[in-house]
């Protein structure tokens, strides 16, 4: 169950970690070039086999780096 401490800390974290950074980031200029393509996959649902292999390789590189 929620208690007062949790609510207070949650609100502090929310406003300190979410609202304020968003305010800081607002209004920044971003140049737009090169984002159009004949391929459209930005909202693609990830395939399990590709995602799983990517996790596995990402873990393997730890093994390689540790010798």
């Amino acid at each position, binding site marked *: 169950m929620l208690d007062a401490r*949790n609510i207070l800390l949650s609100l502090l974290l929310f406003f300190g*970690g979410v609202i304020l*950074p968003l305010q800081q980031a607002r209004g*920044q200029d971003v140049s737009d070039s*090169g984002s159009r393509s004949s391929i459209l*996959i930005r909202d693609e649902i990830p395939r399990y086999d*590709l995602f799983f292999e*990517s996790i596995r390789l990402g873990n393997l590189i730890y093994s390689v780096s540790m010798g």
Partner: protein
Amino acid sequence: MQMSSIQSAAFAFSTTPFTPVSFLDDDDNGLQATIAVSNATKSIYIAFRGTDGEEQDTWTDIDLCLTPFLLPPVDTSSSGSGSTGDIPDTATNSTLRGSSTKPGTLGPFGKVHSGFYSRLFDPKKKLYKNLADQVKAVVSKYPSTYNIITCGHSLGGSESLFLASILALQVFPNRAIRSYSVGMPKTGNEAFKNKMESIDNLSIVRMVYNSDFAAHIPLPGLTHTGHLLLYLDEDYDNSHGVGRTDFSLDLYYRQDGSKNDGYAGVPLKDWLVTPIDFVWPLGNLYPIFSHIPWRYEEAADRAYRQGIWPTKFVPYEERSCGFLSYFGW
């Protein structure tokens, strides 16, 4: 920069579907990446190592300043050699003043974590160009139907996102590029997020296991980029009193959702982590243990075997129950 042999990688990969092609190991700044091919899924992967307790990783992680995300030019010719120019000085680059852009340079695309950016885009080392050239050489040897995927855990996820943007915008503008990461911290600001998510041929998906602390660090000025796969264990029970009876793996549209598109964002009760979660109740170290990379592998495998791998984004209607519902009421 040292280009080590791939013999050690070949040994480690011997029981996997991967064929290691190259291994990049920079002793100075700690960046390690490998290019590997899987003929099982017809995919070319570029994986980055995450934070590994090395001193260079620590300095990279704590460099929390924001720096403009400028994409330096890479040679996109078929020869794969030569550079069209140097990385611009971010402090004096004219694009920051809103005037002309240096030929071949793209951006700025918002601002990003300075430590992550500097490691890959160091103007002296040009690791980004080295990697892009290697990827280009590998890709040219395989049919165009092969998938191109950048990936990594934690810090490695952020680096993989940067490389994915180079590949999608400059090197392979007419190929599908996928950036898959796990436990990735916030990497760029809202402007960076908007730009990366607007690139047509770039799919960005990151997975978060329970309350993984790296993904929940409230880095000032930074936000999350891409779609979110959120795995919650059946015994995931943080100090918010959110009890669960079964595990879940849900796919959220760009984390915050999009009401206009009919997609929901992550409920705060499933996402919010407070300092209390780290210390109370005693022994609740979920945020720490949730960052262990092997857990992600187990979680994804488990979700698939149980038939709950998501096939759609969470619909808005299912999670639009009012503000208090976010807190579990």
